[in-house]
């Protein structure tokens, strides 16, 4: 009922405006055309000037008004590169934004056709056009140059000592597999997925025997981490907003992102003055109805804390009791698996 009334009121307002418009047109028909034209030009030109002031003030003031809600400075080493790029791109674009808008709206006001204004015939100026071609081109090339440098650095090979973690996406959750003491992730295939073996690990691969799976992403501070990202169903995107980390999870094509966290969760809680604060893991590529719900927590801790935590985790291989099973039986499964498998998490597309 309320919404019906609301619509009715809107309809009435529209009707009134429509009648006002018609009435003004009829009144105008009595005036001389030149007079109406000048009145309109004066009013609309002036409105642009008013708009210019409000728009430039509003757009810049609102930026500062919401400032405390933006993501804080990234808590990863490469995030500083991105902030640097962001700053210089702003330096290159903000003056253009302000200057072109002032010119546009000021001219719109100044050169409105009133008092029989005569236009100035001016069809082109090659030198001027050359200047405003060359300057943007030069600025763009600087931005491209710096952008490529940072990009290739961030996307480049991970350091040898990076801790290898795997993030696997599925509708609608993230799971993390740690490579254990050998720092090598075991091979896996979606054909092996069962309720017990949710990653589809191939047990014949010895590298799997110390791999453990968690639902919390634990990261050691100050150590490079290489996250191998993959999905078992549709596209997802591994997204750590505070760390400036984002990469699609693609079924069949493993992707990766390496980074170095710089702040522990405990430090962040103090820094942001929020004792409940957690780093969050999200999905940034539409993956179905519960896309908005793929939350996990990322915990950054000191290296000692991390190592201690890792030691406490039980590898799936052990949890399933596979290490105690008969060797014969094990071997038979192994041979069957090996004949069928050709997709592994180790294959790189890069």
């Amino acid at each position, binding site marked *: 009922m309320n919404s019906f009334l609301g619509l009715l009121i809107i309809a009435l307002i529209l009707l009134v405006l429509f009648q006002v418009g018609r009435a003004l047109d009829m009144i105008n028909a009595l005036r001389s055309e030149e007079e109406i034209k000048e009145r309109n030009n004066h009013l609309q030109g002036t409105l642009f000037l008013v708009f210019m002031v409000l728009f430039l003030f509003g757009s810049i003031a609102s930026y500062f008004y919401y400032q405390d809600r933006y993501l804080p400075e990234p808590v990863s080493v490469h995030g500083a590169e991105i902030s640097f790029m962001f700053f210089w791109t702003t330096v290159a674009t903000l003056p253009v934004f302000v200057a072109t808008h002032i010119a546009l709206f000021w001219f719109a006001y100044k050169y409105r056709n009133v008092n029989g204004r005569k236009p100035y015939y001016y069809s082109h100026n090659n030198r001027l056009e050359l200047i405003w071609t060359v300057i943007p081109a030069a600025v763009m090339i600087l931005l491209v140059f710096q952008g490529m440098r940072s990009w290739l650095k961030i996307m480049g090979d991970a350091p040898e000592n990076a801790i290898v973690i795997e993030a696997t996406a599925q509708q609608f959750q993230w799971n993390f597999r740690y490579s254990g003491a050998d720092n090598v992730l075991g091979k896996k295939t979606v054909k092996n997925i069962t309720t017990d073996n949710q990653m589809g690990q191939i047990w014949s691969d010895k590298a799997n025997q110390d791999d453990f799976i968690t639902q919390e992403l634990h990261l050691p501070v100050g150590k490079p981490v290489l996250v191998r990202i993959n999905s078992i169903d549709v596209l997802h995107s591994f*997204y750590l907003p505070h760390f400036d980390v984002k990469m699609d999870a693609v079924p069949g094509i493993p992707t990766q992102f390496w980074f170095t966290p710089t702040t522990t969760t405990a430090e962040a809680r103090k820094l942001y003055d929020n004792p409940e604060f957690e780093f969050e893991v999200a999905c940034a590529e539409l993956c179905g109805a519960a896309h908005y719900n793929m939350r996990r927590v990322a915990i950054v801790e000191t290296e000692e804390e991390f190592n201690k935590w890792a030691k406490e985790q039980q590898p799936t291989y052990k949890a399933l009791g596979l290490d105690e099973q008969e060797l014969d039986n094990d071997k038979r499964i192994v041979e069957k698996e090996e004949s069928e498998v050709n997709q592994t998490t180790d294959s790189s597309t890069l």
Partner: protein
Amino acid sequence: MSTSSNIDTAHTIAVHDHHDDHHHEETFIQKYVFSMDHKMISRQFLITGVIWAVIGVLFSVLFRLQLGWPNESFPIMEALLGGWAEGGKLQPEFYYALVTMHGTIMVFFVLTAGLSGTFSNLLIPLQLGARDMASPFLNMLSYWFFFSAGMVMLVSLFLSTGPASGGWTVYPPLSVLEQASPGSGTGMTLWLVSMTLFIVSSLLGGLNYVATILNMRTQGMTMMRMPLTIWAFFFTAILGVLSFPVLLSGCVLLLFDRGLGTSFYLSDIYIGGEPLMNAAGELMQGGSPILFQHLFWFLGHPEVYIVILPAMGMVSHILATNSRKPIFGYSAMVLSIMAITVLAFLVWAHHMFMSGMNPFVGSIFVLFTLLIAVPSAIKVFNWIATIWRGSINYTPATLFSIGFVSLFISGGLTGIFLGNSTLDIRLHDNYFVIAHFHIVMGLAAGFGLFAGVYHWFPKMFNGRMMNDTLGYMHFWVTFIGSYCIFWPMHYLGLSGVPRRYFNFETFETFNAYGDLNQFISTAAIVVFFGQFLFLINFFYSINSGRKSKTLNPWESNSIEWTTPLNAGHGNWVGAIPPVFRGPYEYGKEGMHVRPQVVPDAHLDNQDEYLDGQGLK
């Protein structure tokens, strides 16, 4: 068109089908339904586009209600959507369906067909001095394929499993696997069928536009004397003709994956509790979801220029006409459209920096993407130089053109952030992107569309004018309101808020903006209802608008204003007037108007000359 120069009446022209037994009387169906007159087809495109725009924008208002007030229930939602909004609360599945349909409808049906289809059809023959398109029949087919595409999409809205809901980009595997999302069932099939029909429509239209522009210009209308509108339509058509087929191939492979058991886009998938097997009982392997993204964006990126170039052309034309000055740097404007067209083909993968594509490939796309800012900047500077020291007459079309320039600047500059792959790590798929492309492509193109409608309304509807006052009100509501909707989205982006989230409350990081989301949604509702100022004005004025006192209400130089009122199929009665100069010589030698059709010798007595030629 030398063949038609000796033909006397519009009813016996070469392009017209001869039905002697009809005495050239067109039946209702010939005139209003299966019309081959480009003017009628342009009206069909426009009115269909306007209807789709109302649907598309209404969808956005519905999902904005969800984003603004995620815990409220809206009885109106249940009344409109039934089971999809049980108890007045939108279901997530249908939220994504609404988002998908909003994108598809606005990009393809409204801004491609409604904008480019309408004005290419109206203006190409009229501004070039042609009786009709090169093939009026294919032109008619182009509209009816578009109409059918729309009907198929409309049907998909009423399926029990809902329409396609994987986003307007329909990325596989989500769009292939019914198990992954109900919208990937029949809804997705109909989406693909609809898009196929739409692509056919686009190709028929585009080929026709190119053929007409190259071959059917009137005597004296050299390429460099064409209005910038025509240059824009020309390159738009080339973009469409070269890139839509690639989307078609992408869609066909997607159909194969869905129906024929192929795996172009599928590999190593575990869904619905089992691994995805092929017919031979083997695991589906070897496909690449990234391949689809390449095929999609090879159209998808040129598509944004297909949308914006016609708007640029019309804005250039309107700004010159209403500032009473030549467009500043005509040649530079033509060259920059050309440069944008070439570069438009070389930037598609900037949508895919974070897709898992090889990062080295990404860096090449950064280069071309940022380079496209150069011709765009030239155009902006030239528009500003055009109004400088002009004598600006504020028609509603002028207002929307100046609004267009402002939006193009605001949205274009944020493109410099997003086109840089380094920054895309932070900004990809978050609200900064939503703000960017809605401002630079959605709003700017929409403003171009409004400018075009207000400016050429008298040409489209037999000398009727739209109401100026309502036009002014419509502009200010839309201009201020749209900035209120999309400007704050930059701030959501700076907080890392991802796009396509049904609800932000799960994440503490993304949940800081309840108040701002309500503000945005309120602005969206106001702007939506503000559009009725346009709709009422538009439909009322078609039959009852004030009659223009002259054939040429804006004192324009270009030749479309020399055709008679109620012009029949064939546009000019008698010979098509030849052209003696470019369209933008406003104010040259102190002369207010220098019509293209008046020879130098008669410029001083142009009124008598035009009268004598039957062009006034």
